[in-house]
């Protein structure tokens, strides 16, 4: 997969508020060009699993859509599995798949097996081959009698796994996954993650994945692409990136009574303060000591340590200009 100087600029209507603005807009429409993605270049080798990170609105989905052929780039070019995506030739469409968290391709009122049969026919799999692949995927995803239950009766996690089955039945060589674990509970997230690792190992498929969950990225992606404001800021090993990101851990506190903001400066960086609820970012190497001091010195009712959401870490990174 190769992207060379890939860019997308949207034309949006520019309208001032109020009646005057509306009339002016009606008579003389004005447009503004808004760049969503600018000059993005990278190469992904067959079989690689790459994480695609960036805050909301950074251009992740636009880039994925350009690589799947759903959006025509306004600059640069892309080659995926040997094809130009936006031509959407049949060879290309059978070589790729796109899984978008909440967009379902399963027929709501029928069991997943019916949708799988349709996909098998569309991708030209004969009955015995389709059955073999359905059995294999069902085993990997731990789906059984759920496949004969109407989709609307399935839990979110079961539905997501059935979506993955439908998206992978034709055994695509390139997977684009946009938030594949969004909304799933921790167990279901872990199972989907394990499945993706197994699938990649078994088929040698290339995977490009976006996720809000740091755990997805650390478990799956040795390499990450970091995009912000439509530009690619980082392309490299996750280990090197997490040296910059991971020194921070998030500590949530619930106090017996509200305290002024200055109180928390000696312990770490104050992220938010809402009455008695406090969120701090504390360097990893000082974590044990800082937590012990917090418990000793402040009226703490509850304390929770977690990885900060990836968006927040990346946001900090950009605010501090570490990457730029």
């Amino acid at each position: 997969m190769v992207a060379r100087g890939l860019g997308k600029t949207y034309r949006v209507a520019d309208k001032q508020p109020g009646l005057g603005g509306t009339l002016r807009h009606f008579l003389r429409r004005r447009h503004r060009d808004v760049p969503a993605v600018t000059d993005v270049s990278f190469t992904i080798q067959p079989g690689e699993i790459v994480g695609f990170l960036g805050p909301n609105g950074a251009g992740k989905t636009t880039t994925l859509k350009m690589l799947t052929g759903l959006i025509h780039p306004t600059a640069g070019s892309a080659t995926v599995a040997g094809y130009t995506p936006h031509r959407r030739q049949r060879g290309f469409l059978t070589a790729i798949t796109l899984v978008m968290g909440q967009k379902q391709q399963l027929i709501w009122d029928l069991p997943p097996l019916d949708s799988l049969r349709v996909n098998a026919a569309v991708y030209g799999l004969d009955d015995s081959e389709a059955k073999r692949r359905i059995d294999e995927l069902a085993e990997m995803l731990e789906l059984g009698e759920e496949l004969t239950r109407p989709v609307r009766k399935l839990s979110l996690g079961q539905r997501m796994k059935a979506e993955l089955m439908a998206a992978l039945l034709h055994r695509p060589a390139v997977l684009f996954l946009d938030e594949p674990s969004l909304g799933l509970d921790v167990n279901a997230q872990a199972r989907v993650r394990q499945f993706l690792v197994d699938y990649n190992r078994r088929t040698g498929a290339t995977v490009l994945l976006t996720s809000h969950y740091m755990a997805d990225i650390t478990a799956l992606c040795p390499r990450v692409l970091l995009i912000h404001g439509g530009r690619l800021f980082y392309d490299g090993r996750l280990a090197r990136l997490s040296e910059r990101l991971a020194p921070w851990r998030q500590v949530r506190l619930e106090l017996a009574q509200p305290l002024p903001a200055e109180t928390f400066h000696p312990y770490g960086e104050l992220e938010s303060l809402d009455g008695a609820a406090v969120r701090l970012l504390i360097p990893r190497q000082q974590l044990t000591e800082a937590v012990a001091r917090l418990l000793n010195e402040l009226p703490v009712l509850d304390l929770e340590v977690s990885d900060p959401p990836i968006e927040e870490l990346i946001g900090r990174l950009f605010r501090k200009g570490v990457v730029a």
Partner: protein
Amino acid sequence: MNRRWPRALAPELARGLRIARVLLVTQYAYMLEYRAEIALWALSGVLPFIMLGVWSAALTGGGGAAGLGLGLSQAELARYFLGAFIARQFTVVWVVWAFEEDSVAGRLSPYLLQPLQPLWRYVAAHLAEQATRLPFVVVIAALFFLQQPAAFALPSPARLLLALPAIWMAFAIHFLLQSLIAILCFWSERAQALERLLFIPYLFLSGLVAPLAAFPPGVRQVAFLTPFPYMIGFPAQLLAGLEVPIASSFAAMAGWIALLLPLTALAWRAGVRRYTAMGG
């Protein structure tokens, strides 16, 4: 003639037939989930029967059907409206609503990423819905004859053989016309408002509210320049066993399909180009 092309085409044909079979079976299963709703839709299509009541009342006061220039007996008029009801039941098209719902819900992108023209899914859904309607239509027709025993007559096998392709072609014309409007969704998300514009001439010129013979000659001449009279009137007349120019009507329908098919394909291509330019 190149003798190799049929062989190259055979796997494509087999693939197409398999997709058609699986889509039809799946969509039929889906429609059966909604059989109660579909029965209500079939019942709500009784406009021709209401029109029959209106016309019958007008005829008893106006010196009979011949007196109004229809050239039909009361029984023939009843059979015509039953034919119109049946033709309407198997040519109902709702692709513009389904397409709009799918594009608003974001289901269009996954469809566009599969190696199958998305409109085929809607064709299969319509055909499956017609199969679900069939038993309700038979029951309603039987009740109609019980109520109007004088009008009872089954079409001759020859007429039935002609009426079937006429209904399918009428469905094809209606489907293509509405697909053209549905494709406008790529430009404006509320394309179904335009469907209303199509519905008015369809209602009056198709023969749904009155046989075309009831219209003044000028209106009739204009009507036959449009596809509408072939969408209900022609198959209804075939089913009712009435006199109707068969060859020229089939030729006109074939002509409309030959015109609308490439037009829909072109519009689709332009629509997808627009969709991919605007951001999917």
